[in-house]
Structure formats: C-alpha cells, structure tokens
C-alpha cells in the first residue's frame, strides 16, 4: 500500500512509483518457478530482456505488477518475482485499468498475445488505448495460436494452412500497430524478440511514457509457426524499415526511401536513387497528428512481411485517464469519513417517528 514517507520517483509513466532504496539486480526479479515454454521460444528472450530491464528502471519489485491474459506469453508473470496475476482470455487490460486507476504507485504491465489482445480481447485493447490509462502493454505477436496447438490467429496471413484452416485461412490479418494508432494510442512501437538492445530500448521508452503504451513484439513460435519473422531478422535485412526520430526514413542499406506524394500525401517506397525532387519522409514520433504514423504503419506487409517498419511510431502527451479519474476523487480523513457519510445516508428530507 502507500508508504508513510514519500519516496523518490522518476517522472513520466513511472511518476508516483517508488524507487528501490538499494540497487536491485536481475536475479531479484527471477521467481522460483521453472520456465515452461518450448525450447527456442521467443518468449525466453523477452523474459530475459525484461528481467534485465527491471533493475535499470530502479522501481521497487513490490510496486511492479504484471497482469496477463491466456496464452503461452501469459505465463509471463509466474516467472517474475513481482506481484502478478494470470487472468482470463483477453481481459487483462480491464483488470490493469482498475488496478492503475486505484493505485498510482504501481508500474502496471500487461502481457498479452495476438489471440489474447486482438481476437477475444480486442474490445478491451482499443478502449484501454483510447482512454490512455497509464499501463504498458507488451503484445507478443507470433501470428499463431500456440497454447491451443496451432490454429490461425488474427495476425496470421491469408491462406494460412493450420488445423482449423486446412484449405487455407480466408481472413485478412490485423496490423496491430495500425489498429492501435487508429484508436489514437499515445505510444505505439514495434520491435523484435531477437534484437535485445532494441527490445530493451523500446520497453524502457514505453514504460516511461505516461499513458497507455502498446509494444508489438514480433515473437517466434518454433513449434507452430517457426521462422515467420526470419526475413526481418537477418542482419541488415532489407525488409526492416527502421524508424528513428528526426531521421529520414530509409532502409535496405539506404538504397530505398519512403517518400510522400506532394499531391495525395500518400507514402510510398522508392529506390533512393530515384527520389528526385520528392520529399523523403522524416520520422517524428512526437507529431501531434496521427496521420503520418498511420501511413508508416500501413507500409507493413501484413501478409508476407516483405517489409515492416520497426521502432517507435508514436509518442505523444495526452491527458491520462487514471490521473484524471483520481483528480475527481477525494477521500475524507479517516476520522471524518463516517460522519460525512452519515449525513449523506440521512439525507435532507427526514421525519421522526
């Protein structure tokens, strides 16, 4: 609960969360439970990065809470020696919302997957993002249902052959980043499980953002969808469009550029030596207008991942839902609370018998 002394805190998303009195290390965040993901699962990499990140953030273990839904990734909280809740399918954002509203002194993380967040829990995800509650959502996207043994997911490509789609999926996949931006989420990023440094940087920025943060993590499932991100993971992959704040958006070793059509405003990819008089897009995470972030997200080839922007799409300040909710609430002093309530319970129109 609340501590008597006001402890030092950082700003932004972690404002109000007390810092550890003495430095912590990675091991402090490792629980005594045996990790039971499949060998080679991308979840291991995310867990390791997360456990290493925690001491760097400096917040107290007891003030860190991880809420998960259902799916392979949702076992995450059991492997961290913090507070945690493994809840029900798709609903983690709702629990996190109530927790964040009631407790500004907690760093609240949501760990979810593509099925959990985008299929059964899609409604909660968009509303958490719309409200801008101060929570950090890590969306492990492996483009498949793993725990239920290999059905297609809302991010699986069309034509995907799985146990439930032996003739190929006829659905079209979601682009999670575009979905989040469509809900006008204030922090949206995409990263990859195998890039430890980028993953750590993005998660750090996400938790330090005040408001709802969504991090899509491309995560490999070695059993049911092995290698779907391999094209993006090769060193210097020409498919990755790196987004760096203030820099022109170019990729494939600078040979390709993203330009804006002067008339339609549409973004397209052209060979850099053919840019000519056109404007190469300069990435601005802090752009108040969501349009360019959406346009960049739309460069994602959600079908075959032949190209995908990676990085922080958007990071803007907006009023924060739980801060505003708390600002409306006043708790009377303990000694006056009952008397205050008694006058409300009694009301104005009484009579004596």
């Amino acid at each position, binding site marked *: 609960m609340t501590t008597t002394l006001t402890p030092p805190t950082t700003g932004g998303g972690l404002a109000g969360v007390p810092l550890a009195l003495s430095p912590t290390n990675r091991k402090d965040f490792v629980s005594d439970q045996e990790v039971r993901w499949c060998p080679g699962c991308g979840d291991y990499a995310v867990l390791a990065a997360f456990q290493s990140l925690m001491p760097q953030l400096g917040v*107290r273990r007891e003030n860190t809470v991880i809420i998960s839904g259902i799916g392979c990734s949702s076992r995450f909280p059991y492997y961290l020696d913090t507070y945690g*809740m*493994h809840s029900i399918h798709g609903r983690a954002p709702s629990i996190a919302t*109530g927790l964040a509203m*009631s*407790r500004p002194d907690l760093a609240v993380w949501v760990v979810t997957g593509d099925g959990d967040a985008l299929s059964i829990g899609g409604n909660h995800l968009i509303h958490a993002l719309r409200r801008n509650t101060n929570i950090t959502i890590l969306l492990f996207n492996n483009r498949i249902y793993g725990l239920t043994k290999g059905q297609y997911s809302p991010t699986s490509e069309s034509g995907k052959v799985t146990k439930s789609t032996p003739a190929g999926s006829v659905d079209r996949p979601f682009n999670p980043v575009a979905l989040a931006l469509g809900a006008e989420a204030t922090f949206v990023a995409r990263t990859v499980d195998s890039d430890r440094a980028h993953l750590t940087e993005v998660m750090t920025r996400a938790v330090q953002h005040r408001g709802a943060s969504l991090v899509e993590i491309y995560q490999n499932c070695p059993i049911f969808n092995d290698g779907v991100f391999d094209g993006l993971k090769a060193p210097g992959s020409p498919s990755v469009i790196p987004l760096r704040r203030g820099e022109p958006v170019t990729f494939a070793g600078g040979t390709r550029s993203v330009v804006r059509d002067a008339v339609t405003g549409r973004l397209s990819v052209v060979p850099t030596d053919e840019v000519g008089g056109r404007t190469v897009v300069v990435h601005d995470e802090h752009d108040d207008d969501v349009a360019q972030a959406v346009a960049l997200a739309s460069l994602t080839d959600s079908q075959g991942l032949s190209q995908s922007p990676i990085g922080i799409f958007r990071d803007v300040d907006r009023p924060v839902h739980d801060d505003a909710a708390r600002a409306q609430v*006043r708790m009377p002093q303990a000694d006056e*609370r*009952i008397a205050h309530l008694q006058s409300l*319970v009694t009301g104005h129109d009484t009579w004596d018998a």
Partner: protein
Amino acid sequence: MTTTQLDRVVIRFAGDSGDGMQLTGDRFTADAAAIGNDFATLPNFPAEIRAPQGTIAGVSSFQLHFADDDIRTPGDRPDVLVAMNPASLKANIADLRRDGILIVDTHDFTKRNLARVGYATDPLTDGSLDDHELHAVDLTGLATAAVAQFELGRKDAARSKNMVALGLLTWLFSRPTEPTLAFLDRKFGRSPLIRDANRAAYLAGYHYGETTEDFTVRYEVRRAPLPAGTYRQITGNKALALGLMAGAAKAGLPLYLGAYPITPASDVLHELSRHKDHGVMTFQAEDEIAAIGAALGASYGGHLGATVTSGPGMALKSEFISLALMLEQPLVVVDVQRAGPSTGMPTKTEQADLLQSVFGRHGEAPVPVLAAQSPGDCFDVAVEATRIALTYRTPVIVLSDGYLANGAEPWRVPDLAAMPPIDPAFATEPNGPDGKFLPYLRDEKLARPLAVPGTPGLENRIGGIEKADGTGNISYDPANHEAMVRLRQAKVDGIADSIPDLVVDDPSGEADVLVIGWGSTWGPIGATARRVRRRGRKVATVHLRHVNPLPRNLGAILRSYGRVIAPEMNLGQLALLLRARFLADVETYSRVRGLPISPSEFEADLLDIIDGKDFR
C-alpha cells in the same frame, strides 16, 4: 364538505410516458412521507424513452400505497386511478376496484384517440365506467388556463397538466400544499418561468377541488406508528449505493465501482458517481466484462471492488466471477434482476436469476448469494456482502430486482458509527518458512491472506489456473485439484457459521403451512399472511436473505411443517434448490408477469392451500 378517515389508500397515476407520471408519483410519495404515513411504491414504465404518444405501449404509471399502519406492498387493486388519456384508462381500468375513484383528463378523449386504442364508443359517456366514481375533468384545459398569464408555448402549457392532477389529489387527501410548492421552488429555481407555471398549475388543481361540487368527500390517512427513529424515503437502488459506501467505509477502504449501463441497475452507477468526495471511484467500462474486470483490478489494488448489472450482464460477467473465486479475491457483484431471458422486459421485475447466481458458472464454482427483501434492506444486504467478501476473500452476489430498485418505502436511517467494523486484514508480514509468503495458507475460516501490491516482501503470483494450496504455484496434481475444489466449497459452506438462524413468523405456533420466500416477495408474502390470519387461518412464513449458503436451521424448519409453499417470480427456482438440498417437498407458487405477486390473488390461493384445496 366531510372528511373521511381511511386507514389505507392505493393510488395509481397513469399517463403517457412523457406526461410526468413518475415525477407526480414521487412527489405524492414525498408528501405521504412528510405526513408520516407508511408507504410502498411501484413505478411501472415502458423501456422506450418516448413511445408513440397515446398508445397502450407508451403508458407509464406510478402506484403508491400509503397507510396509517405498517404496510408491506404497493398494493394491487388501486382505490384511486388518475388516467391522463384514453390509452392509460384502457390499460389500467381493469385493476381499479369497484366503486373506486376514477379521475380522467378528458382533453384527449377525441374520436381519433379513442379509436386508436380500440374504444368504439366513449367510455366516459357510454356507461361502461358506472361501477366507479367517475370524475371527468379537463385537466389539460385547467392547466392551459392557469398558465395563460405566462408566455409559454401551447405544448409547454399543456405539459403542466400533471401538476393540476397533483394539486387536485393534494386537496382530495387533505394535504398541505407547502411541501410541493417548496419542492417546485428547489427544482425549477433556475428557470422562474417554469417554476411559476408549475406552481400556478398545481394550485389550480388544488382550488378546483375546493370550488367544484364534483367531490363530496375529502379523505385523510393519518400517520403510521412506525418504530421510533429518524426516517427517510428510499429506493432500492439508492439504498444499494449507500450500502456499498457504508461497507467500504466500515472496512476503511476506498470504493471502486465498475459498471456498464443496463436497466434497471444504472441508477446505482449514477448515484455512486455523484459521491466522489466520499472516496468513491466509478468507472463506466466498455462492456459488462470490462466493468467486472476493472472492479477486480481495483480489488487487487486494495479497494472494495464492486460491479452492478442485470441478468444479461450477469451472464457476461460469469467468467470473471469464476476467476475471482478461483483467485479468492473479494468482490461484490450486484444483479438487479429484470424480466428475462435475453432482453426480456428490461423495465419489469422478475426473480429468475437465482439459479444463475447460485450455479451459473463453469466448473465447481461456489459463490455466496444474498437477496434483499425490501428497498431499505438493499442497504443492509450490501453491507453484509462487503463483510462476507472481505472476510472470506470471495466474490459475493447480491440479488435485487426491478421492483426493489425503483420502489420506495420509509427507511429508518441507520447509525453508521454503531455498525460493527469490517476488517480487511491485509497481510503485512511473511507467513511461511524461510520468511516466504504463502498466498494460499488459510486461516480457520479457510480464508487466504491478501497481500496488496506494494507490500514489500510479499510478492506473489495468483491466477485462474489451478494452484497448489499454500504456495499458489501452478499445480496439475490430481490430489491437489480435488483438495482445492473441496476447500473452495467448504469455505463458502462455512459462511453459514457466521449468519444468524432464521426466525419463523408463526404467531399461533400451530400452522401446518409454511410459506418460504426470498428477495422481494417478502412484501407480498407478509401482506398475504396477515390477510389470511385475519380470516382465521394459521400460516407460518420464513424469509431467506442468505440464499447461498443457506442458514443452518433451515432444514429443521422445512421438516417441521406439513406443507411448504415457495412463491416466486419465476418457475420455481427456490423450490428446486430446496428440494435438492433438503429432500423436502417444497411446492412452487409461481407468477412471472413482470410485476410483484399480487397479495389479493395470493390470499385467495393461500386460503385454498390452507383449506386443503388445489391451487394454480
């Protein structure tokens, strides 16, 4: 002019849903309260906000029963009916008792309007109302004339006809005009024109009664001798909101309500949203599921978490209720029942969510269930739910219904300081060997310790997946699962140790027939039992507030009567439950019309039952 003393009167105001009948009824009720009458009310309105004007579907009514003695129900057959148009006359006339007073606004009795609701001839003149004391008055015309001095449009002028009706009734029942005039000043203080028009219309109605020779008798109902105390008027939804606040305050916790708008529960959300200066946080969620999810999140954060809904919302919340009981996390879930299934009749009452509440979940999922028996009792039940939720670390379901939610009664204001405190007993220290914290190490009540996030040294993980007792770690061990299933059941069963024995109302001590009820049938059952006893028969009654677990002495009570009758606004859900639990021959008395059980109808049937005849 003579004034006749009456011991009780049932009045029904009926009009178009835009005619202000609920406001008129509320105001007349407030006057009954101010005089010190006992009373009970039954608002009855369509779900449509503005149903087509002048149609049966658009009729809205408000019934008030007030008396100089203790009463239990809003009554069934009105003594007085005020009908503001042909549709409301048609929809309500069958209920008016013979020789009852019928006041009709003649203004809308045109050929077209009559034909629209199926009257071939004008009932005001064709003799069909001869069994009643008919007063045909152009209330709308009186209203228009009274407000002519104010520059209102014709429509606005006509709208004050409900005030004319209220003024006339105020005169007829010998009441002072000051309280309503003061009320109008308060309500319309910011728009003097509307205030003055309403005052003028109200007084016009009052003076019409005084000057016309149409009425030969005035009536008076004296104050009722209620137990000593300070009283106020209260509806069930308001009492529920205040009860949740009181429970949280007695536990020293902030209150967090997650809710999604649904009839007839929304007023609890509205009421609590007004009291943020009492440490109440409310959250209108994106859906019923998120509403309970957020409440559970706040509960995890150390607040008293609560959610309110009605039947369809309960169905959506059931997975979360199962999670809460699996986590063993406190939560109060309120179901203000309405007529179902599916959308059913959202503004009408029913008691058909009993089995959904007791059994409607996946897996072995025991949850305590409480039921409020009167509008004021909603307060006590909310406090009791808080006690059980926090003491036993469990979700608790509170059942109210549309009748209790919107109905009003006098309520003796409780002394909050005198109510016992509730100890949430959050864990602050490790409880296991080696300084570890075991989140599922149980106390003698089988309740687990609750460590609120932020408590150093007690970091732990909880989840919906089966867990090892003690550590809470994931466990698929067969013996552990069986032990946990039985532990969760035993914990909820054990709550019976903390609830009082039932007291049977059997004045003669010689009754052979026991009437058992739960929830809002308390009023009709009590009223019926009195009538039956006045007719020289013997009958016992007993009422359940704790529906799960049931009180310890219930089995013995059931076995000590020859016949047991369970009246319910469903097809016999309590009877099914009691038969299963006690192998007792409980008979169902069932009415599912979206209305409370009628005491006069039940009286006739109960007399037959006691006399050994068959009943429907």
